[in-house]
């Protein structure tokens, strides 16, 4: 089998006030269906190893996570190598249910923005209130980053994890790098 390759081969930019790095290959499964149906919830929880996230939130357990994408969509994150097994188990549990589960690992790119002013990088490019009281860890937000769709959450303080389509990975990397240019921090969210 061929080795998985991310869009930018793990590119990293440490020249700015926050570091931007492409995250290595990550397993991602999109699950669409009725999120209020018990069998769907059960299957999603079993496949992700994480409890069902509430609206607009992400739950994580070690390196697995599950995010609420829309009223009928979840995103399961896991190790890249596990995705086939998890998807097969998920589909088995969902047989007979009106659902759709797809491996989207290679259709996406993921970035990590790290630094004391990481929130500012996001605030510059997305129409989201990034004040520490407004956007808190555990929240998961789909929005636009400048001209492209993106989703993000904060796995820990001062770290923002961003998911976008693979086709716009380079745009996203350059955009985040520009927003994080050294000495362009505003200090708006300083307490």
């Amino acid at each position, binding site marked *: 089998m061929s080795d998985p390759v991310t869009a930018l081969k793990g590119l990293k930019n440490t020249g700015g006030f926050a570091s931007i790095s492409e995250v290595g290959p990550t397993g991602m499964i999109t699950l669409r269906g009725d999120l209020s149906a018990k069998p769907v919830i059960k299957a999603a929880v079993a496949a992700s190893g994480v409890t069902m996230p509430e609206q607009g939130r992400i739950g994580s357990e070690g390196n697995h996570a599950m995010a609420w994408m829309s*009223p009928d969509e979840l995103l399961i994150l896991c190790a890249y190598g596990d995705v086939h097994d998890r998807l097969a188990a998920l589909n088995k549990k969902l047989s007979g249910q009106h659902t759709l589960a797809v491996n989207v690992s290679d259709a996406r790119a993921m970035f990590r923005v790290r630094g004391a002013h990481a929130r500012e990088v996001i605030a510059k490019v997305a129409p989201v209130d990034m004040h520490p009281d407004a956007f808190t860890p555990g929240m998961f937000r789909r929005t636009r980053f400048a001209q492209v769709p993106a989703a993000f959450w904060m796995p820990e303080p001062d770290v923002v994890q961003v998911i976008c389509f693979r086709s716009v990975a380079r745009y996203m990397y350059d955009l985040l790098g520009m927003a994080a240019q050294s000495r362009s921090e505003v200090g708006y969210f300083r307490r």
Partner: protein
Amino acid sequence: MLTIHCPNCGVTAEETEFHAHGEAHLKRFGPGSSEDDFESYLFMRKNPKGVHFERWRHQYGCGKWFHVARCTTTLEIFGSYSAQTTEPPKEIINHIENRRPDWNATEAPK
């Protein structure tokens, strides 16, 4: 700039995260309808100065559709409501009547 609330995912954001899709609550006239009805369904749209009901989609967010009632002159938003309805809910109508005493509720789509 409009600040819009999506009732499907609970997000409130400025309008660039969304996309407007024109007049709401149109009644579809398909095959078998009169030419006049079909023409008006396809092309004729209200363009009111004041209270207006529109379809919006949370384009960059959850991707879902919903309705927005707003004022085209002041850009005030009266409220968002479900896409799964053929007319604005009572709360929205009441709220508009409070905010715009001159507005005639019989102008609301039915």
